[in-house]
């Protein structure tokens, strides 16, 4: 068996007292080292364990060697803390981290011996819930869940568990319990909705509440208005094994209003809420002392946008000097400030510097609302080489709406320009060590973004454009890597399907798909076979555009960004008009603040460009 440490538990900081009497188990549908660093799950673990009478444990999906061994020996999926069967918990919660984890959820439920379909669960079975970043088109996986929490889960998960506890105490039947759950704001109970396919919808139809259920027409997400009131230090379990993000994480802000039109997180985590400077510094230092980590990451969707970013970094660097502790930030803004902050945390000796221009031409960057100019890129690159970096990594996307060959060739030109600047600053020749690598993902249209109506570029065309990019790159110091077109195709299918798409997920699982996010486990042929079996053409689904007046499969779940705003953004995209960031300029009318009665909470003044 590989890596036994995955199954050890009893890590430093784990909650050992699990007395209940109410028991919840939260599952990240991947192996321990991928799931353990997940901050969302850590937050919910802490929120539930803080409740009187509620206990929360963790579980992860065993790797294929272990699950084979467990099936062979008749051992079901267990929780980590008390090694209790997952099926014995009152509530079992899954993180919907990304689309490619869907077969892992089936696998986890099957291994746990819990009926995979919510409709087939008995009175005594656990209530299976879900939440997380990928709830925004949860329809293809919704038949597995009794309830799904939309948006911030801090308060909602406690309310859901309390509701289950109270309903059970009252002796309510499962059907009644689900009705009660649907009364909680932000909680979507899939079984209370019928899917209607008509001339106003796509082939996947749209969901309407079952007559008499009283379930809301549209379930709107939960949102923590006062982010500063949340625990800044939820992640205090220190793993024994190396995990994918092996460091202390402090969430310094939530939400991003830059408004990139392809970005689902940017639309669904609004409004922008900054954590106060002093709170961030205090939490980071206290967290380091409690956990013993030698690195702290200031996480968020756009850390360098925090109005106190520079001050926080100065303070932490001063306080932690000489202790061998390293401060990191996950992403850099594409301007001089971004470079300055990157230099502040790591210095140029720490590997390469990464930027995300996303598109190769100004025209296309305007289409996607990536408010970065040619000049910004050049200045940032010059700055980075001057401060000492030698390697620059650039992220791009391929297949964005309106993309032409010119834009693809533009990716190579941007890389060449950055490389030329590097050679100009540092000097030419092998020893200068200047290199540029570009990583190109395939655009996947996501629900609740202005690009949700878009089709995905066909697979053959993706491959042709990838070849075009390679052919346009002439310098040996530019390295090109791109995402697998097949994986992106499956991701697009899972992002666009409605509830009937669950048949595809089940068929894929039966064909042996699991750990689809692992390149060595992903098997496109199995997905094709599954598609054939259930009569779904993967490419047909991915490349089907949707029209602006159609009812979409996910219209009944809302991140509070209005459809009108998304349509307006889609139209502005078509003509290449950009939209500003409302934390730096005026309101753009996305609808989140009035709908949720919240507002952006900016600590100081944001330094826009």
């Amino acid at each position, binding site marked *: 068996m590989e890596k036994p440490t995955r199954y*050890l*538990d009893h890590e*430093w900081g784990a909650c050992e007292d699990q007395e209940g009497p109410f028991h919840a188990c939260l599952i990240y549908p991947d192996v321990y080292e991928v799931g353990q660093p997940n901050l969302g799950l850590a937050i919910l673990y802490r929120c539930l364990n803080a409740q009187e009478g509620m206990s929360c444990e963790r579980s992860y999906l065993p790797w294929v060697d272990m699950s084979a061994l467990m099936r062979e020996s008749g051992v079901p999926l267990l929780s980590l803390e008390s090694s209790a069967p997952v099926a014995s918990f009152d509530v079992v919660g899954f993180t919907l981290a990304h689309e490619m984890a869907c077969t892992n959820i089936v696998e986890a439920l099957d291994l746990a011996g819990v009926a995979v379909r919510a409709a087939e669960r008995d009175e005594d079975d656990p209530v299976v819930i879900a939440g997380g970043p990928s709830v925004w088109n949860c329809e293809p996986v919704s038949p597995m869940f009794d309830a799904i929490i939309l948006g911030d889960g801090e308060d909602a998960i406690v309310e859901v568990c309390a509701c289950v506890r109270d309903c059970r105490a009252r002796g309510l039947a499962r059907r009644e319990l689900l009705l009660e759950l649907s009364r909680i704001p932000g909680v979507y109970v899939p079984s209370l909705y019928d899917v209607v396919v008509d001339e106003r919808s796509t082939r996947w139809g749209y969901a309407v509440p079952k007559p008499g259920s009283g379930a809301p027409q549209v379930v709107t997400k939960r949102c923590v208005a006062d982010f500063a009131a949340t625990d800044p230090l939820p992640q205090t379990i220190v793993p*024994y094994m190396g995990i994918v993000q092996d460091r202390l994480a402090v969430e310094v802000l939530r939400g991003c209003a830059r408004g990139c039109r392809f970005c689902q997180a940017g639309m669904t985590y609004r409004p922008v809420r900054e954590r106060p400077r002093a709170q961030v510094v205090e939490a980071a230092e206290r967290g380091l*002392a409690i956990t*013993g*980590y030698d690195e702290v990451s200031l996480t968020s969707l756009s850390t360098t946008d925090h109005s106190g970013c520079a001050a926080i970094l100065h303070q932490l660097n001063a306080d932690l000097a000489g202790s*061998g502790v390293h401060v990191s930030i996950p992403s850099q803004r594409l301007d001089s400030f971004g470079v300055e902050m990157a230099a502040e945390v790591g210095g140029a000796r720490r590997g390469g510097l990464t930027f995300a221009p996303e598109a190769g031409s100004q025209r296309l960057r305007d289409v996607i609302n990536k408010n970065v100019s040619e000049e910004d890129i050049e200045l940032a690159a010059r700055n980075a080489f001057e401060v000492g970096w030698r390697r620059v990594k650039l992220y791009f996307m391929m297949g964005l709406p309106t993309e032409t060959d010119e834009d693809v060739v533009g990716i190579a030109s941007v890389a060449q320009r950055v490389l030329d600047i590097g050679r100009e600053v540092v000097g030419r020749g092998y020893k200068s060590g200047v290199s540029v690598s570009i990583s190109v993902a395939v655009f996947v249209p996501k629900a609740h973004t202005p690009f949700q109506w878009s089709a995905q570029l066909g697979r053959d065309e993706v491959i042709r454009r990838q070849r075009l990019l390679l052919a346009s790159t002439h310098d040996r110091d530019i390295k090109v890597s791109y995402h697998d077109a097949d994986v992106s195709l499956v991701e697009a299918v899972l992002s666009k399907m409605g509830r009937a798409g669950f048949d595809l997920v089940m068929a894929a699982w039966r064909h042996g798909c699991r750990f689809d996010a692992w390149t060595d486990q992903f098997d496109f042929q199995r997905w094709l076979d599954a598609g054939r079996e259930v009569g779904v053409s993967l490419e047909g689904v991915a490349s089907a555009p949707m029209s602006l007046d159609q009812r979409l499969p996910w219209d009944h779940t809302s991140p509070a960004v209005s459809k009108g705003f998304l349509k307006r953004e889609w139209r502005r995209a078509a003509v290449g008009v950009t939209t500003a960031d409302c934390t730096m300029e005026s309101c753009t009318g996305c609808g989140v603040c009035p709908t949720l009665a919240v507002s952006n909470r900016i600590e100081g003044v944001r330094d826009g460009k």
Partner: protein
Amino acid sequence: MASRAEQHRLRVRYGKDGRLAYLGHLEVLATINRSVRRSGLPFAVGNGFARRIRLQFSQALPVGASSRGEYFDLLLTDRVGEGEALTALRDATPAGLAPQALCYVPHRLPALEAWLSDSLWRVELLGEAVPAQLGDAIGELRCRGSLEYLRGERRKVVDLGSALRDWDVDAGGRELAIVTHATNEASLRPAVLLDAAFRLMGLRPPSLRVSREAQWHVGDDGSKLDALGPWE
């Protein structure tokens, strides 16, 4: 910052026990590093770019093996009382890796990994008795000299003449004791020896529970020196 000579070399004996026996060596290192940080002791930090804690460990234990005698040396910038240091470390370390004893040792001693060359192992056979011929089979292997085995995909060779110092087989019982000597070239894992011995006897190698009972240094005159002294 205090120079190396002004730092204090604290030697800690700790165990590896229970479920934590399944930790890999790097996982043990990471966990102890974090325990030291949590302890609040005035640990010294290296001058390299990575700014690591100045810690040295004794030889790696195999995954799955437990131990009652592992060691690390930690450099401190201030001299903390031994009792106080032990309490601070214990309170900050998972029970399965708990420190048992410690003392300050002279700077002149060589690095732990090379210096602590000899180990006493206790090996328990799970589910079966020790075959009567096992002792002879081990003797036969030692006479042959070098033992070749696969570690993962890699072919390894260990010279049993120097690596295997002694063994004590309790025929019909459950356990045996093995004393090994590690050199720069190779060290002998009990499971490797037992595997070869069972194959030699034409038997299927059994499941084992392996535990390191002690480690010590052997002086030039052949005398045994305990890792924790006494020191003059």
